[in-house]
């Protein structure tokens, strides 16, 4: 555990947040070291965006604390060291790429120089194009450029690659890695394990406002490795759940999907109990499938904090 608070890039402690009666965050704590990339993973509604907005000062903190290099979210000092790409942002259609970059750069005390910025966001030749005439990928690159124009120490990227094709995503990842190497701490939310896997030093899995898992990508994948068994069986979901090594059961009628951490033993008992079992298939799955399959109860939260 880090004890030197001011040196830490980011500290979040016991963050709770409610929208009316809906609980959005329920006791989230984590740290981010300078130059590290943290990926917050979770399905829609898990609280990722709320967490980002709190850290950016767009929402007032209700309970808990956030320190950005010792600064309070939303303060001018904090805003000077942060940059962000937000979800579903549309920039004014009538301003050109250069207009937008100059406008945002002007707000920063020591912005990146214009040509560097254009180059690092791969916007060469698009300077005089209006936002409305940009392609989806170009729009993202412009938003990325706006996020980094002030040389942020902390960069927040809220689902930055949603809707991008594979090649564009690869480009984007490269830019992020470059930035991280210059010492910028980055927080990235995503649906994609692949993305987290490719970029993050640490992953934090968020579900219903709680941290349900955290660790390095390797650690997380190890703890959540399993197999998906699909079959037709006369056993009920109830009966299936009682079997050894079953993590999750779902299905309709006779058609069942079972996730198991102990596939071989489970198959033995399955076949023993249901002689009519048919259409059997077995697939190895990663964290991503676990996530998409298991909404309510993910793999047991593995406390990896000690390991960190």
């Amino acid at each position, binding site marked *: 555990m880090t004890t030197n608070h001011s040196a830490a890039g980011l500290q979040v402690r016991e963050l709770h947040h409610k*929208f009316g009666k809906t609980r*959005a965050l329920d006791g989230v704590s984590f740290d981010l070291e300078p130059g590290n990339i943290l990926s917050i993973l979770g399905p829609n509604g898990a609280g990722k*965006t*709320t967490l980002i*907005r709190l850290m*950016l*000062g*767009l*929402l*007032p903190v209700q309970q808990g604390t956030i320190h950005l290099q010792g600064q309070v979210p939303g303060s*001018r000092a904090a*805003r*000077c060291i*942060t*940059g*962000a790409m*937000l*979800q*579903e*942002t*549309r*920039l*004014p259609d*009538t*301003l050109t790429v250069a*207009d937008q970059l*100059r*406008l*945002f750069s*002007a*707000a*920063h*005390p020591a912005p990146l120089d214009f040509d560097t910025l254009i180059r690092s966001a791969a916007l060469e030749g698009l300077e005089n194009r*209006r936002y409305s005439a940009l392609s989806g990928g170009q729009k993202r690159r412009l938003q990325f450029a*706006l996020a980094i124009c*002030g040389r942020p120490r902390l960069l927040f990227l809220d689902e930055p690659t949603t809707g991008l094709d594979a090649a564009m995503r690869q480009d984007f990842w490269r830019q992020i890695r470059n930035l991280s190497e210059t010492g910028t701490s980055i927080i990235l939310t995503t649906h994609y394990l692949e993305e987290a896997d490719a970029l993050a030093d640490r992953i934090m899995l968020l579900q219903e406002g709680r941290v349900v898992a955290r660790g390095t990508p390797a650690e997380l994948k190890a703890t959540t490795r399993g197999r998906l068994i699909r079959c037709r069986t006369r056993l009920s979901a109830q009966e299936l759940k009682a079997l050894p090594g079953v993590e999750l059961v779902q299905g309709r009628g006779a058609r069942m999907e079972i996730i198991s951490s102990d596939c071989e033993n489970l198959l033995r008992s399955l076949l023993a109990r249901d002689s009519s079992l048919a259409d059997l298939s077995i697939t190895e799955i990663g964290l991503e499938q676990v996530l998409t399959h298991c909404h309510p109860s993910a793999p047991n939260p593995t406390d990896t904090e000690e390991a960190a």
Partner: protein
Amino acid sequence: MNASQTLKLYTTESRYEWLKTLRMPGFVLPSLLFPVVFYSFFGIIFNPSGSSSGAATYLLATYGVFGVIGPALFGFGVGLAIEREQGWLALKRISPAPAMAYFTAKTSTAMIFAALIIIELFAVAALFGKVAMATSDWLFLAAILLVGTIPFCAMGLALGSWSRGKSAPALVNLIYLPLAFLSGLWIPIQMMPAVIQELALALPPYHLAQLALKVLGKDQGYDVLLHIGYLAVFTAICLWVAQRGLKRADGQGA
């Protein structure tokens, strides 16, 4: 930040706000054309008193008010509602630029539009409406109209902070046009039924129009301080409402 940096920041914000708005024909054309077209029709061509410049002079003040509050309401009301919904406002809030710079940019853009509308109207009034006033009166009228946009910027801010982007233009029109009519901006207030005349006392454009008409000596004779006081209180209320509206939008996580 030192003063020159701050100044540069404010001018940059204002410059791009102006460019952004100027490139929207859907905003620019109605804002710049409607007041002068309406004024030409009702103040000059269909002037009820023939070639007299009395009505043309009176209506110059009221259509001036009509003209300058348009960009204030639309620029702020619709602009803010849309930018809030598109997430642009959030992006601006994250950036180190002070929030005041954003609002100042919007206000100055509304004022530049107001200035253009004033120049247009004055030119038409002078060339075709035979309106003649002392130079100091022309300047004074222009100044009142220009400064008078501020309460309506605040009103636009209040509307924009509560309405949705899509419905904002309709909402602002629904408020702007009846407000203009009932405040006597199209037809002199003296020609309205007594009920409307009394109602007008409650409406902000009426008070700005009366201030403008005071320059021409054609107002209804209330105290200047009444009008200024009303507009000041109205501005304060709008700012308060806007603040509430923006807070509420935060609370919804929008």
